[in-house]
């Protein structure tokens, strides 16, 4: 794993910690709402993976675009989509990002250049080529970031995207969020070489594997990739190693886990890690508790607003199929 080559101070890390805490509490809230059946259907939580989304989005400019997966609540939030709009979406409210049409696994926000989650494994990678292509013509300097899982890398469309981006030196940053699992299956049994960053080389783009539980390491690697892309240096692949500390979906019995796996993961998950680091930088646990309390309050307030909001109108459910009639 390459080391972070970026300096950071306590304030910087505190802010990253705050954002990670927002994502954590958001996901926990989603879990509660789902268990209470206020939210219906599958929800895929990114508990334990907060550092990847927070670190990567911290490296983006507002002009940059993002495509994510169904495990994307945190990515949406890190890209700037208000937590209330995310929760409201899951609750089917008019003020939800998509008025309930997208749901947990397929929400998007044009205002935040969040092209959306995607429920088809691997499908976001080809789509992410588009904003990068547009960038060629509109002079915006936009970079397009796409995140997908370790399992998704075996989907043909992801390989097509690697090659297409590399061949045309498009400003795309591919982030592979490697949590070692694809639903109930372990990635190391599905590939001959589980150093997934090595896929990049064959397509002629740089690849790197980093510690995905460290938001600074993620931000550093993604920033390097973003800067290269913006400067015309083409795409790159960042493989961020992380662990999912929840089931694939709510109700997952996690029979595929090895003994002690989750327990071990809990000792090195991003919030534990960054609290430790903040401590080393002289930030007291009480201070960190404050930061987390602020994050929790934010999620609580968003929950209240989202809950109180109106359901989206069934009467308009046929609208917006077409722009031209």
């Amino acid at each position: 794993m390459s080391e972070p080559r970026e300096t950071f101070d306590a304030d910087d890390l505190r802010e990253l910690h705050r954002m990670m805490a927002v994502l954590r509490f958001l996901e926990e809230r989603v879990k509660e709402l789902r268990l209470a059946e206020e939210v219906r259907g599958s929800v895929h939580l990114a508990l334990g993976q907060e550092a990847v989304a927070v670190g990567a989005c911290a490296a983006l400019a507002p002009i940059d675009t993002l495509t994510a997966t169904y495990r994307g609540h945190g990515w949406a939030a890190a890209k700037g989509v208000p937590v209330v709009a995310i929760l409201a979406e899951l609750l089917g409210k008019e003020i939800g990002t998509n008025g309930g049409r997208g749901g947990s696994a397929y929400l998007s926000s044009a205002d935040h250049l969040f092209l959306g989650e995607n429920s088809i494994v691997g499908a976001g990678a080809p789509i992410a080529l588009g904003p990068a292509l547009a960038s060629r013509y509109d002079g915006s300097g936009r970079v397009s970031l796409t995140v997908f899982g370790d399992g998704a890398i075996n989907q043909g469309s992801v390989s097509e995207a690697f090659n297409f981006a590399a061949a045309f030196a498009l400003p795309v940053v591919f982030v592979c969020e490697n949590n070692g699992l694809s639903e109930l299956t372990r990635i190391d049994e599905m590939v001959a070489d589980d150093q997934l960053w090595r896929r990049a080389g064959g397509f002629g783009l740089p690849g790197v594997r980093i510690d995905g539980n460290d938001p600074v390491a993620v931000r550093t690697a993604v920033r390097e990739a973003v800067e290269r892309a913006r400067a015309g240096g083409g795409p790159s692949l960042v493989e961020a190693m992380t662990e999912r500390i929840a089931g694939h979906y709510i109700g997952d019995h996690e029979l595929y886990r090895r003994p002690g796996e989750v327990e071990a993961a809990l000792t090195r998950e991003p919030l534990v890690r960054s609290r430790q680091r903040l401590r080393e930088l002289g930030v007291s646990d009480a201070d960190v508790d404050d930061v987390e309390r602020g994050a929790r309050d934010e999620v609580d307030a968003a929950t209240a607003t989202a809950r109180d909001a109106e359901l989206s109108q069934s009467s308009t459910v046929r609208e917006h199929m077409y722009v031209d009639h």
Partner: protein
Amino acid sequence: MSITEHNEHRPVTAETADLSYVLAVNAALRRALDEVPEVILYGEDVAKGGGIFGATRGLASAFGDRVFDTPISESAILGSALGAAMLGRRPVVEIMWIDFALVALDQIVNQIANTAYVSRGRWRAPLVIRTQQGHLPGACAQHAQNLEAMFAHTPGLRVGLPYTTQDAYDMLLSAVHCDDPVLIIENRSLYFRERVPVAVNGPVQPIGAAAVRRAGSDATVVAWSAVLAEVLAAADELSGEGIEIEVIDLRWLNPLDEATVFASVRKTSRFAVVHEANLTGGFGGELVARVAERCLGDLDAAPRRVATPDLRIPAAPHLQQAVIPQVADITASLRQLVSE
């Protein structure tokens, strides 16, 4: 060996088991692995995880390397199934959601469906693709489609959609024994329905026959898969009003048992189709067209279709309810049908 031969060669020890739909699927797969040595079973999460819905639970431990997990590579799954079938295996592969078939439709339409015809039967593709479809509350537009019409428009591919728990068992088993490629489209809203007695280990059924689920004289309604629950509920409700609906569970779109449909229409003189798929281009159009072509003189009223309007499927449950055929939509349409 043919289904008839197979049935003749095995001792029939028909029993009854109390099974849910998903357990019926599991039982059929277990029996197939057990009695057809060429069967191999694979797909995403089907082995160690036992399937995302548990349909394949316990099979990997029972059948070893004949059951295995695959990378998330639908083209590789389907393509390899074809190649293995050409070389003597009888692969049963899972495409977890029908929506995902679209990343690899080439392998089904351009490859699998062509194999027997283009080689004049010298190559065969006896494989089964198991998948499931339909909406459930909260399922997003990419996980809620009903795409059977695309496959029913693919000559060379058998297509079945079991509704009853018995059919979940029987039709899958028939598919495994069929020498043509078969797509079995289950519906995950049925998986965890209550257990019912299922006849297991009986003779393998031939493919293709529709089933009359409810006899009636006032109108014929054809449907398939999960929406039959709403259709049967609607028929019950209408029965209270003195309207008797004949409900046909089509079960197989290919082969298509149009004879059963025509016979019913000739009796009732009124015809409707109900499906959860989008209206335009749905398989209901094909059925209405066939009835119009063949039974025009028998019709006392214009045929009708009840279907999801031509929209994408929203995730929120209340929005889904507004677009997907409900019992009230069906009763309203059928009341009109019989009153014309």
